[in-house]
């Protein structure tokens, strides 16, 4: 049974003031979302507050909201990078994420070695790596380049390899910070099909995006965050309301 239950989730952390000789007025502002409380060395960021929702198998949740609303923070909390400081999070099913697909690729290693390393980081066994290797190479269309160092690849080749490796699994729960694509027009079409295939197979999808068209096409539920709090949560029709808050159409930013 694949499910996510978030009950009154919150994430609060202390802003650590770094030692500096700059006068207080000249210190750079803290780059963070959510709301900040306190002052001096006792400042706290309330990144998420009272976030509750339930998702079951078949749900595709679109996370929307402005920059700093808490979308990425919520995704990282669902993935397990952050731990909630309040509330309860229950997840049934294996969670996979597509955040930074090029993470960990090494310039000096060959494409083949990079696939193996990335597989190890993803928690694949050597047998799983060997089993997926040829599929990944074929999908990336790198041919003989696969045995050359990663640094010799063009940007498009590197992106194709990263995409092919990152999407070579069947997720139960898939978290995405924006939809991903790669390569030239022909490969983008192939990548879009792969992404759609993954999305169709996944039990639950949580997709953070600023693109309402993408959310409308992919998701059946919407959760809007504002300042770390849930503004609205419901069916996809909420997206229309979110786009036209005060009598006028709002463009996604």
């Amino acid at each position, binding site marked *: 049974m694949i499910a996510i239950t978030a009950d009154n989730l919150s994430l609060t*952390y202390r802003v*650590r003031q*770094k*030692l500096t000789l700059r006068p207080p007025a000249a210190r750079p502002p803290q780059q963070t979302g959510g709301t900040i409380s306190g002052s001096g060395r006792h400042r706290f960021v309330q990144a998420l507050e009272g976030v509750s929702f339930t998702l079951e198998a078949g749900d595709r949740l679109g996370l929307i909201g402005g920059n700093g609303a808490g979308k990425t923070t919520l995704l*990282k909390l669902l*993935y*397990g*990078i*952050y*731990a909630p400081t309040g509330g309860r999070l229950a997840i049934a099913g294996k969670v996979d994420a597509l*955040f*930074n697909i090029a*993470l*960990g690729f*090494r*310039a*000096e*290693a060959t494409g083949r*070695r990079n696939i*193996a*390393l990335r597989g*190890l*980081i993803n*928690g694949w066994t*050597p047998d799983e790596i060997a089993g997926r290797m040829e599929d990944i190479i074929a999908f990336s269309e790198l041919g003989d380049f696969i045995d050359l160092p990663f640094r010799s690849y063009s940007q498009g080749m590197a992106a194709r390899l990263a995409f092919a490796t990152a999407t070579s699994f069947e997720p139960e729960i898939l978290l995405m910070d924006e939809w991903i694509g790669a390569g030239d027009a022909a490969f983008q079409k192939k990548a879009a099909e792969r992404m759609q295939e993954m999305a169709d197979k996944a039990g639950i999808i949580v997709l953070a995006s600023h693109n309402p068209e993408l959310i409308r096409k992919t998701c059946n539920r919407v959760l809007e965050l504002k300042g770390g709090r849930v503004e609205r949560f419901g069916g996809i029709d909420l997206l229309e309301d979110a786009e036209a808050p005060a009598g006028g159409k709002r463009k996604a930013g």
Partner: protein
Amino acid sequence: MLAIVAHAVEDLLRGIRMRRVWMALAAEDIGDQHKRTTLGPLWLLLNYLAFAGTFIFIFDRGGGGGQGYGVFVATGLLVFFYITEVMTSSVTLFAREESFIKGTTLPLSVYVMRAALQAMIRAGYALIGCLAILAATGTWPALPWLASVAGIILILAVTPAVVTCCAFLGVFFPDSQYIVSNLMRVMMFMSPVFWRASDGMTGLQAAFYYYNPFTWFLDIVRQPIVEGTMPWGAFGLCLGIGAGLWVLALVLLGAFRRQVALVL
């Protein structure tokens, strides 16, 4: 407290289960650092030989360093270089791994073990150089060397704890990277790496010798080779320091591991 230690142990066990990851990454790291050089990682051996050779040549001219000075310096440098590398590189460990820590759910112990193994591989090359110097000075393996092996094993066993403590220090107090590197430069001369303890030692020199943990870690490897005796006292002290460091490392790992991604 038990819950904190349980979290740390859970992280460590996950790290051990993912040993293929840190073993592969540590080997890649060493390879990458010397990828475009002709001699590759052999530079690690040459670096050690150049440094140790210079010191032995300068301080032992005309037998000024005393009997067995070459062996004394070669073994002392081997241990001190290792400790220095472990401490200075670990202070920036989590900052270097920021994108991984913020983008994956790998346990922190994976990064700790990757750094520890990298330092061990580097020390392996220095060990070859050290053995070459011992052979050149006519010092050949003997039974007391087993005690040195035990000392090396103890130092290696404490390494992940030191890496963990230094890495957390670097996260919450970033300036510590400069403090630690300067401290280690100073400690190289304040610790008995090049100079020996003498009977009439008093004042600051005696204090630097007796109240300096590095002295004891140097002794557990060096004394059996240089003097052919087992430094029981130093071994017991190092065992105690190592246990203390492991307790501290487990507490830090258990209590703060989930905060690292937020603080970086």
